[in-house]
């Protein structure tokens, strides 16, 4: 029971990261079919190259651009570095999520201990209306934008 609670807790940050990913899900197909043509220099040319479609997929998931061939090369190096792991025999080894896996994790009782800090929290946001954070229109996906607006880095 407690072990399960621990598992859940340690998965949470990852799931959040993949939350970003799942949002991007519907666009994946469009991405992959429409890619690879307008940036051929990123295309797979050797075993180490990451295909252009994957680069753009990653950019969408991460909401961060590579911006340059050097950055892509850095990813390729990082992957090659990570590939050394495959030399390790891990047959029958369980993945380790936390060094505290054999201990109980304690959950706080579900009582309100603090709060009433709405104003303080809102103060750190650049754009609020009443008690709301304000986001720009949410129904336009990033790929639609790519060709319509200048790249933020170009400014």
């Amino acid at each position, binding site marked *: 029971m407690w072990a399960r609670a621990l598992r859940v807790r340690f998965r949470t940050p990852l799931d959040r990261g993949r939350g970003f990913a799942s949002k991007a899900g519907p666009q994946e197909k469009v991405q992959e079919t429409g890619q690879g043509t307008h940036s051929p220099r990123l295309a797979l040319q050797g075993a180490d190259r990451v295909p252009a479609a994957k680069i753009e997929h990653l950019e969408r998931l991460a909401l961060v651009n590579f911006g340059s061939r050097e950055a892509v090369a850095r990813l390729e190096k990082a992957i090659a570095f990570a590939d050394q792991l495959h030399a390790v025999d*891990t047959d029958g080894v369980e993945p380790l999520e936390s060094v505290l896996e054999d201990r109980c994790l304690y959950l706080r009782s579900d009582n309100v201990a603090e709060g009433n800090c709405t104003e303080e929290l809102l103060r750190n946001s650049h754009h609020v209306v009443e008690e709301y954070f304000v986001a720009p229109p949410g129904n336009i996906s990033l790929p639609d934008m790519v060709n319509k607006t200048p790249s933020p880095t170009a400014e």
Partner: protein
Amino acid sequence: MLGRTLREVSAALKQGQVTPTELCKKCLSLIKKTKYLNAYITVSEEVALKQAEESEKRYQQGQSLGDLDGIPVAVKDNFSTSGIETTCASNMLKGYIPPYNATVVQKLLDQGALLMGKTNLDEFAMGSGSTDGVFGPVKNPWSYSKQYRERRRHDEHGDSHWLITGGSSGGSAAAVAAFTCFAALGSDTGGSTRNPAAHCGLVGFKPSYGLVSRHGLIPLVNSMDVPGIFTRCVDDTAIVLGVLAGHDPKDSTTVQDPIKPLMIPGEMDVSRLCIGIPKEYMVPELSSEIQSLWSQAADLFASEGAKVIEVSLPHTCYSIVCYHVLCTSEVASNMARFDGLQYGHRSGIDVSTEAMYAATRQEGFNDVVRGRILSGNFFLLKENYENYFIKAQKVRRLIVRDFVNAFESGVDVLLTPTTLSEAVPYLEFIKEDNRTRSAQDDIFTQAVNMAGLPAVSVPVALSNQGLPIGLQLIGRAFCDQQLLTVAKWFEKQVQFPIIQLQDLMDDGSLVLENGKLTSVSLT
């Protein structure tokens, strides 16, 4: 007064030889004099003076809060500080003012410590040099020491050959090494406290994972991050750890075991110790000077009757690779929170939510952070998750097992180098990219984070160039007290010399009543 250790100055405060306000002002003036080190991002002068005033009142009424009351401390700028800007040395968080204190910060303040400021780091603590933050690199105070200047080649004039501090907590290390405070908090995910401690001639301590709260420490790798402690001697570290350790309801990964008051005995029976020397740490890249000091240290333990044995941690060579995958993956997920909506930088691009997110993150993060986010996302892709992320978690278990096996074979403490070499000049350091550098510099330190063990870097000697060299002691999980006891004994034997900062000594601020500098060294 400033050259004293925390314990000594605490005694001076209690005896009324100095008041908290005097001490605070001396430190503030030294912070200004050493501004060129770039150790601090924010100097919280007003806050510190106000805290000093309150502390002074307590001393006058004989109601001091303890050893830390009135003691100037500094905190790495990735710990949240209520009402004080917390930037992580990133454009993403410039101007961000947390509404709460990190638990460790709160604990220091509750003991009456004076917060002098927030110290510089690599952006989001990603780096091993303290060179990759938006506020510029931190300079190692040893660059300006008499010891280094005297031995430096004559053709190297001017300031262009200043040395890096190591990182990522280089600002905290420089702050303590330059006597601007008596202790500082760093964070340690892969060696970020121990590495700069070794390069700056300090004691740098990484507690067991789960002993000290991470609440309010802006996370890098949740499963490895711990707050770290910098001081000028082991006793001081023990004092600070005594204050910080313990369960925090706001961090469910802190263990609830009752924490006994931390007592580091003055004497210890070394003959009952078993010191392990991991043979895999003998790598060709290790400088011959460090290698020789390492074996001298082993001999020292042996000559005092300790059992010194070679041990094997066979998966050591994969450790840095495993760390790389786990670190970037957790970074990718942790950094997802920075979207410009609730706090931090927000791009002016307003055409759509996603465009705003992407532009914000492009403008807010540096190349290193973006690179790690992208690598991490690659390792977390559906088709790669098993092959990289889960694979790395499996290798992590093997690395942890290596340590368990070593300790089960009877070893009490492992003795290793902390770094491959002494601090290098900035111009040399930046020739390699951040990832390569981190892979080299974290080589002896990150495995400890994967296993959650306590470890401490103890300064042992000066190199031929007059620069500090540290060795690392690694203890069993939650045997932090035993580890510090051994570290204290070791520190006493090696008699590491105090840094001689000529510029600072000219005005007498480091000279004591008897005209002599005192510190950890008795020489």
